[in-house]
């Protein structure tokens, strides 16, 4: 009885207080970035204006002038959206084939796909630079879209495969009986049934594309440069521009963090390849 009483006192007061403390601590750097983004550059480094300051929107209003933010944001949106769309177009038929017409090699193919995800990107840095420069693709949207698609394709196929596997085979087979062809099956039966799974896969893929920071930095200079490249290029403001840099950083991560809140569950699936249930 004593143990029960002790543990319940902890869970009544200790646990919530501790848990909230930990949660706020982890969120603090993001909060601090957002807070700093409402300070002028001068206020941002003054200890007396640490918490009390006159909030200003100038950092957000001047983002175009200071950093050409929207050009980079546009590139991020274009590459992430199109890469996600392309990955789904290739990934859905592939996962469909694997889930409903598996062969003996399906498992090996899937494992091999995942293994491509585990190759360190840096190992092929020079060949990629070489190929893209000689093909005239360096620093183009097309290249970044292709690369983002390829690095996310294994995860997308894997996630879709796990969702499709849950759909009873009978439903698909009933469609076959009715004389629906393969495209019809995918379009009329599979996609409506697995809509939720496809949507969350797409969301996760979009987030990964948006945050990618190796190829987008190494294979772009200006034309296709994304937000990762923009922030990377302003790595050392030496305290001069803390306010405006915070604003542009907050604008770069804000939408994604919010989107991320909605796909916590899928994140576990997508990143552990289903190995944790």
């Amino acid at each position, binding site marked *: 009885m004593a143990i029960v009483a002790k543990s319940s006192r902890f869970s009544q007061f200790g*646990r*919530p207080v501790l848990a*909230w403390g*930990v*949660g706020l601590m*982890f*969120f603090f*750097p*993001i909060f*601090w970035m957002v807070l700093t983004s409402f300070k002028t550059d001068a206020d941002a480094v003054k*200890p007396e204006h640490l918490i009390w300051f006159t909030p200003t929107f100038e950092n957000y209003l001047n983002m175009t002038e200071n950093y050409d933010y929207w050009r980079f944001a546009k590139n991020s949106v274009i590459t992430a959206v199109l890469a996600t769309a392309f990955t789904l177009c*290739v990934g859905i*038929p592939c996962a*469909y*084939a*694997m889930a*409903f*017409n598996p062969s003996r090699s399906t498992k090996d*193919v*899937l*494992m091999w*796909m*995942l*293994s*491509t995800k*585990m*190759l*360190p*990107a*840096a*190992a*092929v*840095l*020079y*060949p990629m630079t070489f*190929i893209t420069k000689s093909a005239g693709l360096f620093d183009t949207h097309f290249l970044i879209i292709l690369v983002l698609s*390829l690095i996310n*394709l294994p995860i997308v196929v894997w996630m879709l495969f796990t969702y499709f596997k849950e759909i009873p085979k009978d439903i698909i087979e009933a469609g076959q009986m009715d004389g629906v062809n393969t495209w019809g099956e995918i379009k009329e039966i599979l996609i409506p049934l697995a809509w939720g799974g496809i949507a969350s896969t797409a969301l996760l893929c979009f987030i990964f594309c*948006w945050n990618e*920071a190796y190829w987008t*930095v190494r294979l772009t200079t200006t034309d296709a440069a994304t*937000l*990762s490249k923009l922030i*990377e290029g302003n*790595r050392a403001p030496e*305290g001069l521009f*803390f306010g405006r*840099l*915070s604003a542009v950083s907050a604008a*770069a991560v804000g939408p*994604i963090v919010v989107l*991320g*809140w909605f796909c916590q569950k899928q*994140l*576990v699936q997508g*990143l*552990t390849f*289903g190995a*944790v*249930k």
Partner: protein
Amino acid sequence: MSARKLPRLLQTPAVLLLLVWMLIPLGMTLYFSFIRYVLNNLRRPEWTSPSLSNWRGFGNYEFVLNSKDFLFAIQNSLFIVCSILFLTVILGILIAVLINKTFPGQGIVRVLLISPFFVMPAVNAVLWINMILDPVLGLQGIAVGSINELLDSLRNAPLLGWFFSLWPDLAPISFRATQTSAYAVIIMVTWQWTPFAVLIFMTSLQSEDQQQKEAAILDGASTWSQFRFLTLPHLARPIAIVVMIQAIFHLSLYAEIEIVSRGNGNKNLPYLIGEFANNNIGAASATGIFAVILANIVAIFLLRMIGKTLME
């Protein structure tokens, strides 16, 4: 037969794309790693284009293995990866166990906790190294400065002033030096990836056998021994998964190193490859092959584990 052939053909685009993506660049890296290939060399212009006549055998590998930079980069990569793994797993378990029970605001705490994971690496690095860790203008500098000010005023206090005058002033740490910037990278990546560990451990805790736990409580098992003998063994597998996935991701850590440590000597393998690739492509490729081998050691174990659950 043909009715089943078409569906199977549907996987070919994906397979072909990934095959090309994997084989061509990797094949080129392998090829470049066996030839002399530099971008600029006035005395030996024939080395500036890839050709079989510049065959060097294992010369690039030898060169890389004998360079101080490489050994340091391997050591540093392992130091950074292992530190991050250690911290994220310990913190992840503690936090997951803490927030797994219901309490007021559990949903909000979860959202707060998971947020760092979605911050793009470049922003993570810029935010930490400037706004938080900067020794003068960041929060660290401001905190150290105000503690020193407080000490100063205490030294002038009557009676106890002599006691405080024995205390030294605090010195802020600059996180842009070689060793300290490795710590900075560890801090920021741990901040970003602890939520990932928490999320996975929580998912796993939800499938813990509750009856077993109740039986243990009835038998008078302490909270600690419940954790030690029931929860921890249950978490063994997710811990292994978290360790391996993170190892693979962090072995190719790039943006954080590039932003925090550019030119200060704190290198890991991907950064060293980038440096070599500015001129000595042969050495960059040989280093790349070493990176592939290192990642594969982890990947084989991970794939085997995933494979077991794949078809269930």
